């Protein structure tokens, strides 16, 4: 295995640990999955098995979300408002670039990724102003202002914003031509027309799934 990895590394220009990982993974020798799913053996009697199946399917149906929810596809940069069975709204968006910024003066580091997982709409804002964080100045090699009012930008976030925690929002943008490309610092940008529709159709507590 190690010799194979070394040769593979020479051929493909990888370090041998990288080649070993590649080889090991592709040979099906990955360690046990991060999610271990263990289920019992089904009952022998058909009637009991059928009853258990109806019960399990009932429990699965109860997990389906009954109200509309938001889904953000960071791969294709598309935002949906949908239900289990239909799509109400589908619109291009922009999500986090995945880039990193390091402040050389202080060593602070920011990673511009849109967080993945399940969230909820925590706030709804009209005409939101952007209070620029430190990274917005550091990124442009500007001095961080002492006066907090100098951090405020009334245009950047568009006409509506939906907050989903930790400073992340679904909001508008002045860069509508870049919708569909991952260029943000983590937030989700949507075009103005569909953002207004979205704002009107969701409420506090609406689920947001980001993947």
């Amino acid at each position, binding site marked *: 295995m190690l010799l194979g990895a070394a040769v593979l590394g020479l051929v493909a220009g990888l370090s041998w640990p990288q080649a070993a990982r590649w080889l090991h993974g592709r040979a099906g020798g990955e360690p046990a999955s991060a*999610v271990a799913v263990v*289920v019992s053996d089904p009952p022998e009697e058909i009637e009991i*098995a059928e009853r258990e199946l109806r019960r399990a399917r009932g429990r699965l149906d109860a*997990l389906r979300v009954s109200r509309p929810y938001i889904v953000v596809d*960071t791969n294709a940069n598309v935002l949906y408002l949908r239900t289990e069975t239909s799509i109400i709204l589908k619109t291009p968006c922009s999500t986090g670039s995945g*880039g990193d910024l390091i402040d050389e003066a202080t060593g602070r580091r920011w990673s511009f990724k849109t967080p993945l997982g399940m969230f909820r709409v925590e706030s709804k804002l009209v005409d939101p102003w952007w209070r620029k964080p430190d990274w917005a100045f550091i990124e442009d090699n500007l001095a961080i202002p002492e006066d907090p009012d100098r951090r405020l930008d009334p245009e950047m976030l568009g006409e509506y914003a939906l907050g989903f925690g930790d400073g992340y929002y679904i909001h508008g943008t002045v860069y509508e031509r870049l919708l569909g490309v*991952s260029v943000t610092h983590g937030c989700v940008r949507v075009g103005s027309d569909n953002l207004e529709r979205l704002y009107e159709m969701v409420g506090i507590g609406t689920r947001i*799934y980001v*993947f």
Partner: protein
Amino acid sequence: MGSGIIAVVCLLLALAWTGAGSGEDGKPVPPPEGARQGYRPIDVALRAAWAELELAKTDGPYLVLDLGRREVCLRLKGALIWSCPMRYASPDSEVMGELEAYLADRHNPPVATLTGKHLYTARERFPDSVLTVVARVARVTPEQLQRYEPGHLELRCGRKLVIDVRTDADARPKSRLGNALAAMRKVLTAPMTDARIAILIEPDDALTLYGAARRHIPVLVCPTTDQHH
């Protein structure tokens, strides 16, 4: 010289695969004495339902191949977050037969785990010239911004299940060396792979599937809904 190196690599790969164990799902366990050889259709359906209930308790998404609806789905905590219709590249009866045998096999757990993926061919979504400019503004590399619409994508769950995903995108090979190695692996591991299916989906959907199919994502194959008698 080049062909000699490739031959050595093939031999070493073959040795590595044969020595790499049984895959991510542990050693095969023989059925207890007196037990039925395989699962009945209702057992398969029940195990899949129980498995999904367990997956819904986790924090991450899971892939579902819904054979009844002919859909590839992504679910998170039980909610449907993405889906696309799929067609089979082979005759239905062949595919269903292979999957039914896979699901009925007591050696196969209800949930497989994605161990790797390979993009054979793809079409770039954005022109390089555009991304060069945008990347400079966004302070990232053009590669980080690029998205690929697969023409041919392979998703592997160890040696349990391999899903060949094909689209009609006008695609080019991503890496000739990578494709050659992947093709060799396919030939060498074919006899040891429990089930291999080929599906056809739209290029846009394949783009999402390629991105969402991260290593270790659980993969659940749901039988057709009438498979419980």
